[in-house]
C-alpha cells in the first residue's frame, strides 16, 4: 500500500475507481427509476438541458442515468470475473504444481487448450449457450482469463515446493494439505494477485464488446450496449456513442494505473 501512495498517477487512478465504485453502489439513489425508461424528448444535445446534463438518446432515454447504471454492470462483471478467474487459476495451478506426474500433465494440457482458443470466441460460444445473464457473462469471460493465474501459480508452487521450509514442514510431519494451503499458498498468492488489475480491465473491455455485439442482457444498461445503440446515429449524434466509450476508457486506465502500483508492491520489485 505504501507503494500506492508514492505514485501520484496511481493515487489518481485509485480515486477515480473509488468514485466509480461509489457511483455504482449508489446508482439507485443517484438516478432513481429505470434507466431504460423514456425520460424526456429524444436526442437532446449534451449540456443544453439541466434536467438531462448529457442529453438523451433517440428514444429519449437519459444518457447520464445510463452511464451511472452502466457503471454498476461494468464494475460487477470486472470484479466477479477476477474472483472466479483468480480462484480457479490458483486452485488448478497449485494442484498441478504439487501433484506433479499425470495430474500435472493433464491439467497443463487443459490450460494449453484454453490458451490456443481465442478467449473472445469462447465467450461468444458460452454466452450463446448459457444466455446473456450476469452469471453467464461472468463465466464466459472468466473462461478466457483463468489460464494466466494458473500458470503463474504453478510456477510459483514449483519453485516453493523445493524450498527448505517446505522440507522442514514435511519432516515435522505436517499433512500435505496443510503444507499446500498454509505454507505454500500464502507465498504463492501475491504474484498471482498482482494479475487482478489486468483481469478486471480485460473483463470490463470484453463485457463491453459482448454487449456491443448485442450479446449482453438486453434488460440491463451497459456502456457497450449504449455505444451500440448510438452507432445508428453516428452521423447525426456521435456523442451518444462517444460518451459511454470515454467512461470505459477512464475506468480501464484507472484500473491499469492502480494495477501497476499494486504489481510493484506485491512482487516487491523496484518501480521502474
Amino acid at each position, binding site marked *: 500500500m505504501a507503494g500506492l501512495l508514492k505514485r501520484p498517477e496511481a493515487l489518481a487512478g485509485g480515486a477515480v475507481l473509488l468514485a466509480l465504485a461509489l457511483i455504482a453502489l449508489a446508482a439507485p439513489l443517484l438516478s432513481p427509476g429505470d434507466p431504460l425508461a423514456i425520460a424526456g424528448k429524444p436526442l437532446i444535445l449534451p449540456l443544453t438541458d439541466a434536467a438531462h446534463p448529457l442529453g438523451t438518446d433517440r428514444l429519449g432515454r437519459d444518457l447520464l442515468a445510463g452511464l451511472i447504471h452502466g457503471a454498476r454492470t461494468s464494475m460487477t462483471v470486472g470484479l466477479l470475473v477476477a474472483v472466479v478467474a483468480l480462484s480457479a487459476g490458483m486452485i488448478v495451478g497449485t494442484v498441478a504444481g504439487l501433484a506433479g506426474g499425470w495430474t500435472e500433465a493433464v491439467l497443463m*494440457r*487443459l490450460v*494449453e*487448450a484454453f*490458451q*490456443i*482458443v*481465442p*478467449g*473472445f*470466441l*469462447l465467450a*461468444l*460460444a*458460452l*454466452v*450463446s*449457450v*448459457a444466455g446473456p445473464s450476469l452469471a453467464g457473462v461472468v463465466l464466459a469471460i472468466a473462461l*478466457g482469463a483463468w489460464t494466466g493465474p494458473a500458470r503463474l501459480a504453478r510456477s510459483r508452487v514449483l519453485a516453493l515446493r523445493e524450498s527448505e521450509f517446505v522440507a522442514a514442514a514435511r519432516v515435522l510431519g505436517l499433512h500435505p494439505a496443510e503444507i499446500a494451503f498454509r505454507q505454500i499458498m500464502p507465498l504463492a498468492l501475491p504474484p498471482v494477485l498482482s494479475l487482478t488489475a489486468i483481469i478486471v*480491465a480485460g473483463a470490463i*473491455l470484453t463485457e*463491453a*464488446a459482448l454487449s*456491443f*455485439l448485442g*450479446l449482453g442482457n438486453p434488460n440491463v444498461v451497459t456502456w*457497450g450496449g449504449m*455505444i451500440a445503440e448510438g*452507432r445508428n446515429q*453516428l*452521423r447525426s449524434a*456521435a456523442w451518444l*456513442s*462517444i460518451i459511454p*466509450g470515454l467512461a*470505459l*476508457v477512464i475506468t*480501464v*486506465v484507472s484500473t*491499469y*494505473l492502480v494495477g501497476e502500483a499494486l504489481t510493484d508492491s506485491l512482487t516487491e520489485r523496484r518501480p*521502474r
Partner: protein
Amino acid sequence: MTPALRRILGRLIGSIPVLLIVVIGVFLLLNSAGGDAVDAYLASIGGGDAGLAAKLRAEHGLDQSIWRRLIFTLGRLAQGDLGWSVALNRPIAAVIAERLPNTLWLMGSATALSFLAGSALGILAGRRPGSAVDRLLSGGSLLLYSIPGFWLGLVLSVIFAVQLRWLPVSGIETIASGKTGMDRALDIAWHLVLPVSTLGMIYLALFLRVMRSGMAEAWSQDYILAARARGLSESRIVLNHAARNALLPLITLLGLQAASMLGGSVVVESVFGVPGFGRLAQEAVAGRDTPLLLGVILVSAVLVILTNLLVDLAYGVIDPRVGRGGT
C-alpha cells in the same frame, strides 16, 4: 532429419491432444443447451411443421444422442471434413476458405504495423527511461491500451470516413465496381486502412510498453557497461545492444497475442463490415449454427498453434542461445 525439422514435428504431434481437448470441450459446451440450428433455421423461414423439423434433424444427424454425435464429429474431423453449415447451407470448409483470407490480411497488416511502429516508439521511449519523451510515450500507450477496439473503430470512422470523407465507412471493396487485378487489390487495401489501424493501434501500445520495459531493464546490465567501456557510440549501444536484447520478448509476444488478436478481429470486422472470419463467428452464434462455430474455433486454434510455431522458429534464428533441442 535435421533437429529443427524434428522439433517442428514434435511440436505438431504434441499439439494433437490439446486440439482434441478443444474439440471435445467446445462440442460438449455448444451441445449442452436446448434449441439447435434447426430451431433457428425454422424461425428464420417463418416456421415449419414437425415433419420438416424431424426431416432436417435426421439429415444433419441432430436426432442422435450427444455422445454418438461427438464420435461421429471426431471421425469426420479426423478425415479433414469440417462438416456442413446448417445456417448457410454450404460446406463449412468452403465458407471458412472464403472468409479467412480477409481476416489474415487484416491481422497480418495490423501485426506488421503494430510491431514496427510499437518497437520503434518503444526504443525511443526506452532510450532514456524517465525522460519527457518516455513519460509521454508511456502515458500515451497506457491510454491507447485502455481503449475498447470497437469504440476506437467507431471514433476513427466518424473522423476519417464520416467527417473528412477520406476513407470508406465499411465493407471490403467497392460493390460492383468491376475492378480487377491491381485496381481491385488497391481498392481492398483502401477499405482495410481503417480496420487495420484500429486493430493495430491497440497492439502497438502493447509492443511499445514491452519494448520500453525491456530497454529500461537492459540499461542496468553488464553488457551495456562492457559496450560503454569499449567506447562504442551511444546510438550503437541503443540499437545493437539494448534494443536487440529487448526485441526477444516482443517476438514471443507475437505468438502469445495471436489468439487475442483473432478475438479482437471479431469486433473490428463487425464495426467495419468486413466479411471475414471473425464476423463468421458472430454469424454462427446468431444462427445457432453449432457445427460452424465449432469449425471456426477449431480453425482458429490451429492458426494459433501455427503462429506460435513460426514464432518459435524465428526465435531460433534471432537468438543464438536457442540451439538445437532448446525450446
